[in-house]
C-alpha cells in the first residue's frame, strides 16, 4: 500500500473544471497521488484519463456521455444514478479533497449529491469550489450561488475561490487564458497542501491533523504566496497578506484557526520559519489556533512558498467557553446576502437540515401519517427536498 493510500486521502475532481483542477494537481505532484475524476462528459473524461487520472462517467445511461448541457438537475440525477460506482474508490478513505467549478451542470449538480453521500459515509470533505468570473454571466454566477448552501450543508470544510479575486487587475487576459491561469493557481495551492501532507519536512503536517482541522474548522479561505531571494521570508508573508483570496489579509486577521504550509528548498533556515510565524501571528488574532508544516524539496532552493487555509469557526476541544464572535459575514458577502443558510453556520447540518417545513410543506397530506423513507418525509414535495429551483 502506498503512502497516499495509507493516509486515507483522496483527491476527487467533479465535473469538467473539477477534473481539470485535479489533473493539474496530479501533473504538478507526480506519481502516487490517489485521485479520481467524475464527469458526465465522456470526452472530458477521456482527456483527464489521458493525464493518468482514474475517471468515472456519471449518468451514462441518462446522458449517454454527452454532458449535462449546463443543466444542474441533470448533473444531480446523474450523480444519484451512479453513486454506487463511486463506492469502490472510497475504501480506506478518511478525507476527500474535492475540487469543482460551480456554475455549470455537473460541477453544480453532482457536487452537492456527492458531498452528501460522503458525509453520510462519515468521510470528511474539504471542498475547493470556484465561483465563476463576473464576465461569465450572471446566470452562471447565480447557478453557482444556488448550489453553495447545498454543498455547505454537508461539507466539513468549504473553500470558495471567487475567480475574480485571483486577478488584481482583470481585463488584460483572454477568457480562456484567465480560466487556465486561475485553475493553475488553485491547482498550485492544492498541490502545495498535498505535498505538505505527503512529503514530510522536518515539521510534519499529517492527514490526521488536517482531518481534525477540517472537522472542527468549518469554512475556510484559501491563499498562497511565494517569494525568492534575500528577505524571502518576510516578502512571502507580505505577499500572503496581500493575497486577494484571503481578502488582502482580512481573512487572516479574522481566522480562528490557521493551517500554514511552508514549502522551501534545502536552504530553509530556522530563523526564516520563526520570521514567517512571527509576522503571521502579528496579523492573526492572539488566540488563533495555528497548525504549521514544512516541506523540503531541493527544487525549491532559494524560494519559499506559503499556503494558508484560514478557518472561520474553529472551536478547540479544550476551549471551555464557546466562541461568541459569529463568523464575519463580510468574508462571504455574495453568498451571505443571497442565502438563508449563512456560510459559517455550517453546522446548520447539526440543526437538522436544509429548510424546515411547517405544515404547509405537506399540503393535502397535512393530517395523515407521513410516508418516511431514508430519513425523508416523502409527503413533502420532492422538488423542495431536492432544492430544485423552478423556472418562473
Amino acid at each position, binding site marked *: 500500500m502506498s503512502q497516499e493510500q495509507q493516509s486515507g486521502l483522496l483527491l476527487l475532481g467533479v465535473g469538467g473544471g473539477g477534473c481539470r483542477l485535479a489533473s493539474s494537481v496530479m501533473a504538478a505532484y507526480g506519481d502516487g497521488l490517489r485521485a479520481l475524476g467524475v464527469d458526465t462528459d465522456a470526452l472530458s473524461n477521456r482527456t483527464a484519463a489521458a493525464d493518468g487520472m482514474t475517471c468515472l462517467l456519471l449518468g451514462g445511461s441518462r446522458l449517454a456521455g454527452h454532458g449535462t448541457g449546463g443543466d444542474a438537475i441533470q448533473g444531480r440525477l446523474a450523480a444519484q444514478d451512479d453513486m454506487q460506482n463511486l463506492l469502490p474508490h472510497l475504501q480506506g478513505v478518511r478525507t476527500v479533497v474535492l475540487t469543482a467549478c460551480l456554475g455549470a451542470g455537473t460541477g453544480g449538480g453532482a457536487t452537492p449529491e456527492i458531498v452528501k453521500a460522503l458525509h453520510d459515509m462519515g468521510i470528511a470533505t474539504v471542498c475547493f469550489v470556484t465561483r465563476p468570473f463576473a464576465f461569465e454571466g450572471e446566470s452562471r454566477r447565480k447557478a453557482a450561488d444556488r448550489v453553495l448552501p447545498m454543498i455547505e450543508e454537508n461539507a466539513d470544510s468549504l473553500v470558495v475561490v471567487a475567480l475574480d479575486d485571483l486577478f488584481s487587475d482583470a481585463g488584460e487576459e483572454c477568457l480562456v487564458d484567465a480560466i487556465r491561469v486561475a485553475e493553475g493557481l488553485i491547482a498550485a495551492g492544492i498541490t502545495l497542501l498535498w505535498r505538505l501532507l505527503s512529503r514530510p519536512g522536518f515539521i510534519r503536517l499529517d492527514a490526521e491533523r488536517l482531518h481534525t482541522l477540517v472537522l472542527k474548522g468549518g469554512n475556510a479561505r484559501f491563499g498562497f504566496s511565494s517569494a525568492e531571494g534575500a528577505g524571502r521570508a518576510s516578502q512571502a508573508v507580505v505577499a500572503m497578506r496581500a493575497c486577494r483570496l484571503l481578502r488582502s489579509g482580512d481573512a487572516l486577521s479574522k481566522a480562528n484557526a490557521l493551517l500554514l504550509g511552508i514549502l522551501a528548498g534545502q536552504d530553509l533556515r530556522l530563523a526564516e520559519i520563526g520570521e514567517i510565524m512571527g509576522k503571521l501571528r502579528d496579523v492573526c488574532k492572539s488566540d488563533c489556533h495555528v497548525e504549521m508544516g514544512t516541506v523540503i524539496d531541493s527544487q525549491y532552493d532559494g524560494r519559499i512558498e506559503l499556503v494558508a487555509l484560514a478557518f472561520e469557526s474553529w472551536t478547540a476541544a479544550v476551549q471551555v467557553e464557546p466562541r461568541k464572535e459569529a463568523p464575519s459575514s463580510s468574508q462571504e458577502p455574495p453568498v451571505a446576502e443571497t442565502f438563508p443558510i449563512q456560510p459559517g453556520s455550517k453546522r446548520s447540518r447539526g440543526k437538522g437540515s436544509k429548510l424546515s417545513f411547517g405544515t404547509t410543506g405537506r399540503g393535502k397530506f397535512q393530517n*395523515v401519517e407521513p410516508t418516511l*423513507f431514508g430519513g425523508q418525509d416523502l409527503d413533502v414535495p420532492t*422538488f423542495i427536498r431536492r432544492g430544485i429551483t423552478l*423556472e418562473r
Partner: protein
Amino acid sequence: MWGAFSECLPELSEAKKRGVMAIPPIAALEIGTSRTVMCVGESDESGRVKITGVGTYPTTGVRKGQITDLSQARVGVESAAKQAEKQADVSIWQVLLATSGGHIQAVVNPGMVTIRSGDRVVSREDIEEVTENAQAVQIEADRQVLHTITQSFTVDDQPGIVKPEGMRCKVLTLNAMAVHGLKNRIDNAVNVVKSAQLDVTDVAFSGICAALAVLTPEQKRNGVVLVDLGGGTTNYIAYCNNVISAVGCIAVGGDHVTNDIALAFNIPLNRAEEIKRAEASAVIDSDSGGRRVTLQADVGFEERLISCKALHTVVNARMDETFRVLRSKLDEAGVLPHLGGGVILTGGGAYLRKVTELAQRVFGLPCRIGLPVNVDGLETVEQPASLSTAAGLALYGRLTYADRGLFSPLKNLFKGVFHR
C-alpha cells in the same frame, strides 16, 4: 385469516361435486384513493373472466390507500356498486375487496423438513409437511395475513426446484412469503363496505390482483416487476423465475404529484389535477423551456400562466424519486438482476406522459404499460390500465374457486400461490 371463498357459498361445493363449474358473477371492489371501482366478472369453463359491468365513482375520505372518513368512502362504494349492478344487470350483495397502503408488508418464512424415509426420496407427505411449516408465519398480533405465497423448494443445497417429489435429498426447504397488513386498517375498509349493505367475502392485496390481470406467463418466467401506479400508493410485485420474489407498497402515488403541483404553483388541488392530466410529463421536455400553459379563470380564480418546464420539473422530481425508492426496495430484496422481462407499469399513473421513458432510465430495464390482458370485456374501456386491480380481483375470485383438477394451464401457475 379470511375464510375460503367456497365456505361462503355452500351451494358451489355441490356444483363442484357434480363436476360442473357454475360460478356466479363475481363482484370485485377496489376503494382507491382517487376513485372507487366495482367490477362484475363472469367466467366460463375455460377459466377466462369477462368483465360485464364496471362502476366507478370519485373517492373522498381515502388518503394514501387508507380510509380517513368512513361515511364519505361509503358514498363511493354505493355509487360504484349501483352503476356496476345496472351495467352487468346483476344484484350485488357480496364483494371481494382489494386493499393497499403503506402498512402492507411481506415477510419470507422458510420451512424445513428432514427426509426420514430410508431411501431419502421426497414423498408427497414430506412436501405437505414442509408447506405447512413454511406457512406457519409468525407475525405481530395487530397484523393480519392476506396471502401466503409459496416460493420454490430447495433440495439440500440446490435451490429453485419446482417439483421435488421423487428427488433424493436429506433436507427439503420451502420458502413461503406472507403478505400481511395492519388488522385495523383492513377492518376499516371492510366496515365501509359493510356500511353500504354489502358482505366482504375475501380481501386481497391490490398489487397481487393487478399482477393477475396484467402479467403473462412468459413475463413471469423471464422475471418482471409490475408497478401499479395508483392514486395514493404505488404497489409492486416482482416475479423471478415464475416465483413471486418481492411484494410491497409505497405510500406515494398520483396524489403526491398533484399535491406537489398545487404547492409549486400555489393553485387549488382540483386545478393541479386538471393540469397534471393535460400537460404533465415525467420527463422534462427539451422544448418546454419558455413555454407557458394557461390555467383558465374560474370563480374566484384568475387566469394564470404556468411555466411548462417548471411543471415538468416538479413531476419529474416526484416520479424519479418514486422509481428510485422502488429500485432501492427491489435492490434490497435482491431481485433487480433477475428482471429480464423488464418493468411493467399499470394503474392510472401509467398514463402520465413519458412515464415509461423515465422508468427505463431509472431502472435501466425495458419498460412498458401493462393492460389487463388476462381479463376480457375491457377492450372498449378508456384507460383500461386504471382498472387492472379491480379486474384482477375478479380473476382472483375466479381462481380461488377453481378446482385444482380443472383449468390446468392456470392451475400450475397459481398452484400454491394462493394457498391459504
